[in-house]
């Protein structure tokens, strides 16, 4: 198990990026990416070789639904970074709360079982929403670099 301790590209995305930039293969068509929430522990429990988001423990309260990420244009700097353009808000959660949200996970589908795991983001502050709560992140709160 090759675990990660902070937000970074997963193996699936690293391979895609390398293949595309070395002109080995064509990049996938443009489309939406979705930010999922995970309850995996902050340390030693997210494996960067996981291919699908369903390999992780996905938050499952009623009211929750993964949100469209809406990435910025990568910055002109090295390392170049990409982040969420707008405020992202989940919920309100209405039942089945109690679990603690620790990670954000970017995928190319809204369904964990078919979402390729692109990037994992460790939250600055873990959150345990109660019934009625929403969970909000500011623009640029989720930042990823190669």
């Amino acid at each position, binding site marked *: 198990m090759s675990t990660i301790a902070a937000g970074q590209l997963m193996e699936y995305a690293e391979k895609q990026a390398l293949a595309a930039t070395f002109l080995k293969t064509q990049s996938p068509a443009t*489309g*939406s990416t*979705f930010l999922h929430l995970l309850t995996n522990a902050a340390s030693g429990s997210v494996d960067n070789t996981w291919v699908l988001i369903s390999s992780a423990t996905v938050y499952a309260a*009623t*009211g*929750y*639904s*993964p*949100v*469209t990420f809406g990435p910025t244009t990568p910055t002109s700097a090295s390392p170049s970074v990409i982040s969420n353009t*707008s*405020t992202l*808000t989940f*919920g*309100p*959660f*209405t*039942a089945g709360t109690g679990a603690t949200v620790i990670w954000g996970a970017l995928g190319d*589908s*809204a*369904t964990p*079982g*078919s979402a390729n795991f692109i990037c994992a983001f460790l939250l*600055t*502050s873990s*959150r345990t929403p*109660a*019934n*009625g*709560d*929403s969970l*909000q992140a*500011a623009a640029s709160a989720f930042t990823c670099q190669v």
Partner: protein
Amino acid sequence: MAQGDRYVYDPAHGAGLGEHHAGQLLADRPAQPGQVADAMRGTLAMIEPSKAQQAKLDAFLGRTMADLDMTAGTQVVRLAQSDHPDAAHRAEEEQATGLVVLGWTDRHGDERVTSVTPEYFAEHFAAVQA
């Protein structure tokens, strides 16, 4: 939007979606924990913010869970039945979770996606006539 995909949250109890399920008012629950608010204020302070930037951050950090709730009268779209670019993704999500997935815009202008049970949807959301 496709015809038949639009609804309005119209609960007989009159409460917000979150408020109803919390069983209490949400105005005393801050939307951001203190640790996050302190970090954001510290980051902004480093760039000597303008008054407008400071006011925008203060407004963001001053939000409560009530500000983020879906209030009665909110118009929603059942994304899986719409012509939204993510409709196929949301249809797959509905099938996987058994929940109804709704897109809406909150009072701050932020695009939201929220799931509700089919029972709650049938009881508290009314179709908007085209």
